[in-house]
């Protein structure tokens, strides 16, 4: 909540960032309307077809965009604090790295990188330590959720090692009854 003093102070310049929101809403409205325009009507009861609701939503988005312009000039948006871009970039970078890596390296390494970069973004941590713990935790998570709860999580070298290791441990128990027959 902005303090009253800030609100009453006269400011002629519009809230540029809020205007940007208005432009975005208008763009979204145009997109929805364009998409609806290429849809065919819905058969016999053509009055309400698949494009009816999209058009209605587009009109509402357009109106909200105009309303936002007014709000931007009246400074109706809450005061925004200074945002620190560094940590955000670390975390977004981590998510991008996970997307880029996951098909090639499997779940554990990709998610370990995400873990490390998020931790680094949130505070002072040693990156190698964060990476190592991230990969170890992710490998454990992969084993529990991927093997035991049967989620389909992409596998890579670490996951293959884990499976082979697990089989080596289980093997003697499996072999015993088999060998007895």
């Amino acid at each position, binding site marked *: 909540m902005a303090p009253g003093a800030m609100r009453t102070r006269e400011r002629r310049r519009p809230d540029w960032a809020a205007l940007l929101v208005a432009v975005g*809403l208008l763009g979204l409205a145009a997109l929805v309307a364009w998409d609806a325009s290429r849809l065919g009507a819905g058969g016999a009861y053509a*009055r309400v077809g698949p494009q009816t609701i999209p058009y209605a939503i587009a009109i509402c988005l357009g109106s909200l965009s105009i309303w936002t312009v007014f709000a931007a000039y009246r400074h109706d948006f809450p005061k925004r604090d200074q945002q620190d871009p560094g940590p*955000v970039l670390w975390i977004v970078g981590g*998510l991008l790295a996970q997307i880029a890596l996951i098909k090639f390296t499997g779940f554990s390494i990709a998610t370990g990188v995400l873990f490390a970069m998020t931790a680094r973004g949130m505070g002072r941590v040693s990156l190698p330590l964060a990476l190592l713990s991230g990969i170890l935790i992710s490998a454990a998570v992969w084993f529990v959720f991927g093997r035991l709860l049967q989620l389909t999580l992409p596998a890579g070298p670490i996951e293959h090692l884990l499976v082979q290791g697990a089989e080596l441990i289980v093997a003697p128990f499996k072999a015993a009854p088999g060998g007895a027959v």
Partner: protein
Amino acid sequence: MDTFALLLQGLAVAAQPINLLYALIGVTLGTAVGVLPGIGPATTVALLLPVTYKLDPAGSLIMFAGIYYGGMYGGSTTSILLNTPGESASIVTALEGNKMAKAGRGGPALATAAIGSFVAGLIATIALAFLAPWVVKLALAFGPREYFALMVLAFVTVSAAFGDSALRGLTSLFVGLTLGIVGIDLQTGQARLNFGVPDLLDGIEITTLAVAMFAIGETLYVAAQGKRAPETVEPVRGSLWMSARDWARSWKPWLRGTVIGFPIGAMPAGGAEIGTFFSYATEKKLSKHPEEFGKGAIEGVAGPEAANNASAAGTLVPLLTLGLPTSATAAIMLAGFQQYGLQPGPLLFTSNPQLVWGLIASLLIANFMLLVLNLPLIGLWVRLLTIPKPWLYAGILLFATLGTIGANPSLVELGMLLVFGLMGFGMRVFGFPIAPVVVGLILGPMAEQQLRRALAISQGDVMVLVASPISATLLAIAAVALILPLVLRAMGRGRILSEVATDND
């Protein structure tokens, strides 16, 4: 069969060892996420949906409801000891609770919150059991137009009626409705807003959206705030026990909080936090010690904490009887039902009474578990608050992406997680509420279907929507709920509305 017999039957289902285990897992997880800042019940249920896909429906739903209840209990701990609400329904608790903790009365504050939550949860769950059959009877008379009117009302109350700006609430709602259009139109089979991407034909997954907006958006937002406001955990000093005087001052606020919270949750009126603000205002007005408010009045903890638990139970009334979610958590629980091919509503009560009554009965049991978890074991939860921020949020993101990858291991899905996460971050910066987006995404397509059904029956005559007294009344209430707050704000009376801002969960 009367409600009592049905409830007893439900208790038999809920008392099965496997269901007790699910309830225990649910309330434990719920308490943990309630305690942890940055992750709430909505996110947790969304994360667990893909994991529970292969489990038994009754068990998973019992677990989800346990998470919802547990979140309401756990949130108070963070509010009282850290002055940072663990979830939005505990914002008010921080006002008096943290002051009590600073004055060395953290123990009684935690106790009145936990016992108040227990009393309210118990009464409200019983109220749910007795109210639900009535609403079901009423709902049987509902046709498409009544459902459509009801959903319009839910849209308005979730987005525009409360909060500090109708503009931002409605914008959030329409962004959600837009996302709801994406995918194949069920009646004509045409793809809408998918831009040729096959992954989008099934629509946008509610779990992906919720996890991105709540977990990733919140993480980015917290990260962007840098190192402002160092947080200190107040140690729990002295006895956990409430004195006779504390009891005397607490029991009335508990009951009043329940009476305030339950109907607000049960009406399509948004999340659990609204009731907490009303309860706080009521206690302040009725208190014999008004001078203590703002300095640690126990009534200010007891009332709102009872109200938020009563609201959580109340939210289950429209969810179970009408299939109408009125909070983000309820919206995701609805997705949970749908995952098993179950549609909550009047029919579920006849087609699957075991599940419905088992769920309701398990909530009674969950309440007892939560009382034990939150009083004697409170020290364990306080420890959670001391996890350093980097490790906490790194872990949150690990699990956030795990749920999405597990549900659908495609790069498009992960890309959406990132895009919606950035959107959630941007919306937080500009003060847009998140819950309307989630509710809009799940309720939008349902409302469209009901509208098109209603208009197909009337052969396109729009007047049919107001031709039935029920739908006309509901639409009229929706119109009032939309216009009245605008008038109040224009007259400069908007302060009370912004105080009851709907935020998360």
